[in-house]
Each structure stands twice: as C-alpha cells, then as structure tokens.
C-alpha cells in the first residue's frame, strides 16, 4: 500500500463521528512485534481456556496458532483483538502495553471466521467502515478503497451487494476491510475453513503473498496442520490452554517435542520406548539403532518414524536398521504410494514417491531400511 497520512483531519471530519481518538498506532508501515506474558483465562468455574501462555511474535512474521478445537487458540486471538480480557498476564504490541486497551483503540484488525460483513452496508461502505469510524475524511476514504480494491484485485466486487457475494468473495472483502486500516497486527480466525478445498489452496498462497508484500504481522488461527505448514513462518501448537511447541514448520513437523504435537502434525508411526540407551531403543518393532547425536535426556517416551523416510525392498545400506514386514494394504495416491505394513505384529506406515518403481503387492514380504538419523525421540 502506498504511504498515506492516517491522522484524522479535524477540519473536514464528517459529522456524526467521534472526536479523534488515541488509537495505538505508530508508523503505519511498520509491523509490530507481540509479546504475551503469563496469560491466563478461564470461562466459568471449570473451563480453562489459557493456562499460562508466554509467547513472542516477531514483527512482520506470519505466525500461526495451531491446535484442536477447545485448545485455546481462538481465545488467545480474541485476547489479542481485545474482544476477551485475560484473567491474568500482560499483552504488549510493539513497545506499548495494551492489556487494558479496549478493542476500538487497538491498531489490530481481525478477519472473522464468519467474515462478519455488515448486512446493512454495501461492499464499498463495509470496506470504508474502519476508516469512517476513525474520522478519516470522505475523499481519503474513497482513495483508500480504490487502493485496496486494486491491491486485493477486487474488481467490480466493490459495487456489489453484500448478500450477493459467494463465500470466497466475502472472504476477500473481509480481508480487504481489515487491511485497509493498515493495522500493526492482522488477526485471522480460521478465515479459510468455510471454503472448498480448491479455493482454500488458492487463498492460502494469496494470503501468504499479501503478507510478504505488506510485511505486516499476521497471526493466523487454524486447526489444519497442512494449512499451518504451508503458510507460516512459525507455528505455535496449543493444547489444553498451553503452548506445546513453537517453531518453524519443519521444526514442528520433523522434531515434535511430544506425542501430542507429533500426532497433531499427522504422524501415525509412534512407538512406545520400552528400554533405551544412548544409541538404541527397544520398541514393539524390535531394537533400533539411533544417531547418538539425536539422543534426548528423556529415557521414556515415544519413537517417531516418518513414513517418507522408510526405504522398502532392495539392499539395506550399511549402518541402517533392517526390519522385515508384510504389506497389509496399499493405497495408490498418484504422486505417492502409501503402504500399511505389519512388523512384529504392529502396524508401520510407509510412503514412497511414485517414481515408476515396481509396486509391492499386498501380502508381499519386504525388507525395510531405516536410517538411524531419521529416528526421532519424542517425549510422552
């Protein structure tokens, strides 16, 4: 977006709007960091939504809060927006403490899950709503609407009625309505969950591109780990109101810190560790050699084997673990083939890229090569 003065012009303000308010806004083109300390929130007497959250989000980061429903991710987002007050803890955006700042005085805007477009207003007036409430004069509002319509490529959508828009179109308008205010932080509450898969993929890419172009801090909430990995710079995985892990998509996917994160990231191959030493573990699969560098302090826990790291058939390279299994099921997915194997009576999933190799048939006995470096110990 082009730089423009956002300070309300007292001379030409439209009647009916309140006087200029002290909205927590610094340089509009500068993204803000977020600092959360010791956030607690409970609903009623028993429901704990947040149980001590400490989190730092860097300026200009695409940050995703990921977790199952009821994990506290939406509550955290709503506290950032000011729509929910924390029971304890503090919240800073940039260098200002905004724990007690009401939502209409925070330079934070939200894209709501239901889009929440005002039904009594046209698309144009929906887009201009935030500017109008801040007392920005009509001429500047018009210019900004034109600018954002161009930026998000809304085309003639601006002229439509809100009730004549499709889901995807509403989503874009809701995004534009929040971006037009040039907030320090943009919050997105599962904005893609109501869309069909194709459109969702397209908008994931577009959202990411918009975020990179604006350099704005985005905080995105989702329960879909694929979406989180595709879009985010960093991900926080939440469960039971506690942050389980914060990291880049590859850190969280390849090195989940505990079984919950591993399962939530879609891993099936988790095996309870019965005995272990520095460089080996015993599980139901048998004894497997580990890379000693990988070892963790926890002696108990789980062994994670990523299905795509397994090598089926052929010779087992030196230094690799060798397993024997029987193919129980084969799923042809086009770009890849998924096998459900049985090893020592337990199920092991394996995925092979479809490179035109000979496929293993159901009931085939196959050798499985497991590289010690690909085995990851995961806390319980």
């Amino acid at each position: 977006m082009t730089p423009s003065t956002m300070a309300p012009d007292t001379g030409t303000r439209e009647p009916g709007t309140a006087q200029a308010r002290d909205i927590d806004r610094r340089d509009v083109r500068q993204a803000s960091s977020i600092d959360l300390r010791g956030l607690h929130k409970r609903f009623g007497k028993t429901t704990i939504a947040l149980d001590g959250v400490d989190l730092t989000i860097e300026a200009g980061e695409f940050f995703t809060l990921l977790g199952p429903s009821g994990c506290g991710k939406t509550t955290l987002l709503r506290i950032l927006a000011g729509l929910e007050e924390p029971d304890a803890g503090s919240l800073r955006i940039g260098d200002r403490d905004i724990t007690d700042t009401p939502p209409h005085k925070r330079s934070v805007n939200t894209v709501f899950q239901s889009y929440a477009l005002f039904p009594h207003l046209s698309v144009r007036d929906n887009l201009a709503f935030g500017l109008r409430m801040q007392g920005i004069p009509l001429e500047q509002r018009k210019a900004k609407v034109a600018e954002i319509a161009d930026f998000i490529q809304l085309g003639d959508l601006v002229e439509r009625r809100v009730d004549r828009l499709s889901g995807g179109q509403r989503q874009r308008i809701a995004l534009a309505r929040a971006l037009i205010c040039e907030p320090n932080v943009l919050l997105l509450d599962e904005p893609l969950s109501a869309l069909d898969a194709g459109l969702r993929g397209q908008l994931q890419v577009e959202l990411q591109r918009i975020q990179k172009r604006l350099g704005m801090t985005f905080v995105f909430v989702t329960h879909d780990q694929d979406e989180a990995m595709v879009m985010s710079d960093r991900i926080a995985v939440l469960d039971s109101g506690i942050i389980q892990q914060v990291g880049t998509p590859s850190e969280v996917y390849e090195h989940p810190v505990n079984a919950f994160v591993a399962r939530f990231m879609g891993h099936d191959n988790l095996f309870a560790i019965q005995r272990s030493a520095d460089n080996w573990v015993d599980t139901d699969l048998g004894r497997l050699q580990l890379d000693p560098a990988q070892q963790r302090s926890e002696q108990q826990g789980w062994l994670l084997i990523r299905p795509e790291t397994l090598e089926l058939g052929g010779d087992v390279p030196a230094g690799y673990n060798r397993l024997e299994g029987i193919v129980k099921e084969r799923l042809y997915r086009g770009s890849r083939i998924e096998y459900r194997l049985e090893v020592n009576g337990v199920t092991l999933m394996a995925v092979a890229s479809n490179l035109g190799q000979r496929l293993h048939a159901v009931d085939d006995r196959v050798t499985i090569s497991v590289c010690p470096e690909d085995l990851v110990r995961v806390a319980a």
Partner: protein
Amino acid sequence: MKKRTLQRGLGVFWWLTLVFLYLPLVVVMVFSFNSANSAAHFTGISLRWYRRLLGNEEILSAFANSMVLAITSSVIALVIGCLIGYGMYRHRHRKLGWLIVLIYLPIVLPDIVFGISEMTFFVQIHRLTGILQPGIETMIIAHVTFQIPFVALIVYSRFVGLDPSLFEAAKDLYASPWQRALHFMLPTIKPALLSAFFLSFTLSIDDFVISFFTAGPESATLPIYIWGAIKKGVSPEINAIATLMIGAVAIAAVLSLIFSYRRQR
C-alpha cells in the same frame, strides 16, 4: 386419487375460513356505501354517510384522539421497547427466567384485567398527587405499557438473528460505543423498528377495552365513540367509520408485514 380428494377438501376448508373471517367486514364495507338508512336493505350506492362523517365534530375529534394516541404511544413504546429488547439480547446468557415472564405477561393478560388495573392505578395516583387525571395522558401510558412487550420481542429477535461477530467486527473496526449504536445497531435493526412501530400503531388504533377504562370525558377515541353510538342503534355512519378503520389497520398491518419480511431476508 384419494389424496387429491382430501386436498380438495382442505382447499374448500381454507376458502370457508376466509369467507368466515372476511365476509362480515365486506358486509360492513358494502353497507357503508348504502344510500338508505338501513342495515337490512341495500338500495343504492352513495357517499352520503362519508359526507355526514366529515361533518360530525364528535367523530372528527375521536379520530384525532385515536391518531394522537396511536402515534405518541407507538413512538414512546418504540424507544423503551428497543432498549429492553437490546438489554434482553445483551444479557441473554444469564438466567432471566421470571424477568422474561414479566415481559410476556402483558401480552397474555386479558385486556379487561389490564384495563381495570390501569384505571385503579391512575385513580390512586391522581388521588394522592393530583396529577394524571384520566385523559389522553393516562391512555398513552396504558397503551405504551401493552405495546412495549411487542416492540421488545421484535427487536430482541432481530438481534438474536444477527451473527454475533458483527458486534465484534464493529468494535474491531474502531467504532466507539456510541458509534456502534449509531452506525451499526440502529441501521441494522431499522426494519425491525419500523415493523414494531406499525404493529404498535395497529394495536393502539384497535384497542377498545384498555382505552375505555383509562379514558377521560374529553379523550374518546374512535372505538369508544362507536361503542357509545351503537347504543342508539347501528347507523350506516358507523359502517363508514368501520370501513375507514379497516382500511387504516390493514395498511399498518401490511406495512408491518412488509418490514418484518424484509427483516428476515
């Protein structure tokens, strides 16, 4: 085959119901144009009774009273009922049990009980303080009291039908509490308010029992006038008034319906 016969039977029943409901109204309307002074024989079309109506000071004053009463009470009920409806929405998650029953009570209470209690109440107030002599003021208060629940419920149901995120979106987009009321809530519930106003108006114009108990000697409304007049026998003049009232109420009811239909879209 059998099913079709049944459906035809139900169709007949529908038409019978309509005839039963509306034929008396049609009779009144037809006889209001009767040239003769008779409720039994229709002799020819004339506007004689309407002309007579316009020359009748008592009727004109009753009409004026009815309009003043209906408009004033509807406006007041709209403001109070709107606030109550919003309050009910805001605190809908609390257990309001008996409070909600109190809101509904005036709707189900027999008019005659309501009228008598209002009358007794006003008489006592007047005896103790000297204010609120029976007249148009007491009627307005009484009418407002029975209109409020309707307004409150219409407004409440409009709010409940809204996406709760809209309230949050308004906050999120920098609207202060007053701006939210002015730029979001009022425009959003406008159709509900219009519909509630016309419903209140219709209820007020239509009311006889409560008006009768709270009226003073100078504040007869059209229904009270009619009641007094028919003691001397039904004149075609009454038919003319009735026809005009049917027209007025029908217009208000249709407007109320139109706005509530728009509200649901």
